């Protein structure tokens, strides 16, 4: 068990510093927005009501959806500014996370502040005018100081929320302590999940206590304590800012990965090859499927591995089903023409969707093909990953084989296999390169109508990356050099329940086993 802990500690400076920077920026921006709003709205019921209503409404949007929605919004905006002013910005990662968290941070500060100001003793407010204060002096000398303790309580609540919610920035490509949680969840690495939770909780507690120190110093008029708290907070943020600077990771290649085991292993493999050639590398793992492609097309990733069927149907939105070789060559030209993305070449194996069942049940029902399944489907439940049921491949399977299941259930891939073994579902949409198919003795149902398209794993390079000979040189040896048996075993090394390996270790094994130069 010391190994996952060791590997978690190794990336802690990176994850923690990025988490701190994101949270601090969001909180600072939240305070900078909500205090002027509070000042403007405090004496005007007409303004106060809509401002608080909007802030409450934002709070009710599920945080992960809020984070996700900023990506397409920023992408559109970036394209617009690109067209108008020739300036484009990163729509993935820091910016959408920052905006979503900032919006999230506003409500507690605003509501506490408004409550505090509305509850001030009217005699004191009148006294402020009576002794000759202007409205501005009354605000600075009376209203804000008296509201400060409750306002600070709002800032503390907000800080804890922001730090907790920042863990959800991982799927939009922002490294955070959430990387432990999302990666751990995918790889069934519970030490990482716990480590991520623990780190986020510890960070929230420390921040809360430092803010409490500031609050105490303000309330008891002990400015030294308040300054001490503020200095410690600033020092923490400065230290976090120093980590990426010290690592000198500006520039270099960005290697992307979607959110399942194989992708983590391939990202580790690609990164290690680039590092071996002396190039600085950043990894952005755990990305949503189409998000990864758009990020690549926008040059926010340099390289990642995708699958022909996914690209054909989900990213290029074709309805046709050409043969394997045609699809590959068509993708090559169309991706280049439409996005400037270069398909460097196939890795040599397929990771197709397959429908799989437990062997005893398949045998008992006499099911060998998806055609056989159709008869029993009304009595069975199908489990899929979070994207499967929205994909064209599922609609085609449903239509061509006339599949009508009793129920459909969505799972994180890691949990889908557990669901099948525990009997919560009877059939799963598994992945053909998955090591757990062999480990769990599952039956893969045949697809006699060839509805499931080919899913050749292919290396994609971003428009900028395509022109980089170093990138091509480092990755070309991978082309057609990874057979399905090796990929399956590498996946299995990470996914199995005993003697688990990290994606990095599996990547090292894969490089060795595939005799990669």
């Amino acid at each position, binding site marked *: 068990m010391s190994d996952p802990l060791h590997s978690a500690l190794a990336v802690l400076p990176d994850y923690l510093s990025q988490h701190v920077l994101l949270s601090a920026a969001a909180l600072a921006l939240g305070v900078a927005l909500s205090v002027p709003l509070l000042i403007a709205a405090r004496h005007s019921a007409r303004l106060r009501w809509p401002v608080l209503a909007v802030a409450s409404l934002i709070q009710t949007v599920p945080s992960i959806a809020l984070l996700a929605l900023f990506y397409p919004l920023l992408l559109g905006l970036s394209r617009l500014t690109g067209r108008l002013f020739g300036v484009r910005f990163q729509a993935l990662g820091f910016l959408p996370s920052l905006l979503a968290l900032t919006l999230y941070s506003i409500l507690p500060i605003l509501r506490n502040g408004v409550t505090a100001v509305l509850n001030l003793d009217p005699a004191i407010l009148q*006294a402020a005018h009576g002794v*000759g204060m202007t409205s501005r002096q009354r605000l600075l000398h009376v209203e804000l*100081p008296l509201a400060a303790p409750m306002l600070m309580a709002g800032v503390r609540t907000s800080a804890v929320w922001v730090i907790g919610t920042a863990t959800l920035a991982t799927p939009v490509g922002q490294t955070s302590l959430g990387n432990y949680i999302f990666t751990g969840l995918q790889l069934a690495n519970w030490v990482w999940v716990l480590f991520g939770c623990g780190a986020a909780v510890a960070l929230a507690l420390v921040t809360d206590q430092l803010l409490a120190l500031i609050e105490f110093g303000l309330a008891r008029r002990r400015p030294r304590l308040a300054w001490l708290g503020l200095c410690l907070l600033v020092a923490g943020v400065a230290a976090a800012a120093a980590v990426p600077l010290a690592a000198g990771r500006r520039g270099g290649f960005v290697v992307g990965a979607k959110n399942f085991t194989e992708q983590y292993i391939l990202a580790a493999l690609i990164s290690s090859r680039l590092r071996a050639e002396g190039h600085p590398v950043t990894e952005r793992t755990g990305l949503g499927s189409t998000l990864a492609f758009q990020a690549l097309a926008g040059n926010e990733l340099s390289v990642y591995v995708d699958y022909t069927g996914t690209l054909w149907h989900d990213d290029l939105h074709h309805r046709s089903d050409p043969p394997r070789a045609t699809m590959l060559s068509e993708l090559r030209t169309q991706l280049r023409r439409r996005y400037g993305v270069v398909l460097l070449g196939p890795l040599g194996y397929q990771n197709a969707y397959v429908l799989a069942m437990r062997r005893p049940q398949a045998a008992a029902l006499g099911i060998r093909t998806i055609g056989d399944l159709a008869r029993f489907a009304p009595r069975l439940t199908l489990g899929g990953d979070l994207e499967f049921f929205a994909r064209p491949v599922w609609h085609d399977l449903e239509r061509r084989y006339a599949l009508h299941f009793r129920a459909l259930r969505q799972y994180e891939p890691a949990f889908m296999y557990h669901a099948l073994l525990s009997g919560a579902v009877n059939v799963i949409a598994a992945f053909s390169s998955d090591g757990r198919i062999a480990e769990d003795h599952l039956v893969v149902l045949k697809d006699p109508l060839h509805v499931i398209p080919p899913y050749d794993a292919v290396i994609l390079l971003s428009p900028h990356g395509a022109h980089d000979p170093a990138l091509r040189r480092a990755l070309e040896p991978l082309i057609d050099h990874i057979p399905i048996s090796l990929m399956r075993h590498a996946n299995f090394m990470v996914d199995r329940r005993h003697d688990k390996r990290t994606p990095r270790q599996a990547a090292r094994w894969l490089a060795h086993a595939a005799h990669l130069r």
Partner: protein
Amino acid sequence: MIALQGVCKTFDGGASYAVRDVNLEIPAHTFVAVVGDSGSGKTTLLKTINRLIEPEAGEVCIDGEPVRSVPPHELRRRIGYVFQGVGLFPHLSIAENIGITPQLAGWPDDAIRARVEELIDLVCLPRAYLTRMPAELSGGQRQRVGIARALAARPAIVLMDEPFGALDPVTRDGLGGECRRLHEHMQLTTVMVTHDILEAVLLADRIVVMRRGRIVADGEPHELLAGHPDPAVSTLMDMPRRQAARVRSLLEERTAHE
């Protein structure tokens, strides 16, 4: 001199008037008590003088200058104001509370400190209280601080809105006497709103009686005590006289026994 001419104030768009067509002249160095029932408009009248309330009609002048022509915060720094609820700033020390108006007016720190010490002596509180917070003081002590705060920037005029309303009778009497003493000592023009007619009789040079927004009587205490054509005013003034007579007869009985 404070002069009010045809001052009107309504809070409901003219359906009723809190102050209606009031004319009043208060010569410098006079101590005027404004008395009347609650709702008679006395506090509203007081607040038109330092523009805490702006009248709908009429004009308030101080030494011939209309108060409307002075920015409100500057006007208020020249006029001391003592509140019924005291209104000390709970987050400021006693010294900071007393020194607030000089500080707003931009006095140098040394001058503020000297003035604050002078005032805490004048209102008979120990200097050790200067570093305390308002919550650590009793009600009477707080009102002494309130008075010191009103006097801090050397105003020529002090307005007092039921300053002793929340105090016990002994504290009330003591503070009333000190206000009068300070009034003499600093040659102030004082306008005090009170519903306590005895207090008005004992402290003021002149009593103004208000009812339903209008002035119904205006005179020196002994004139009003001698009787007034308005039956309500004469009933009002009868009260201190009856109380005094009762006290006197009690004292005489006691002397006779001895």
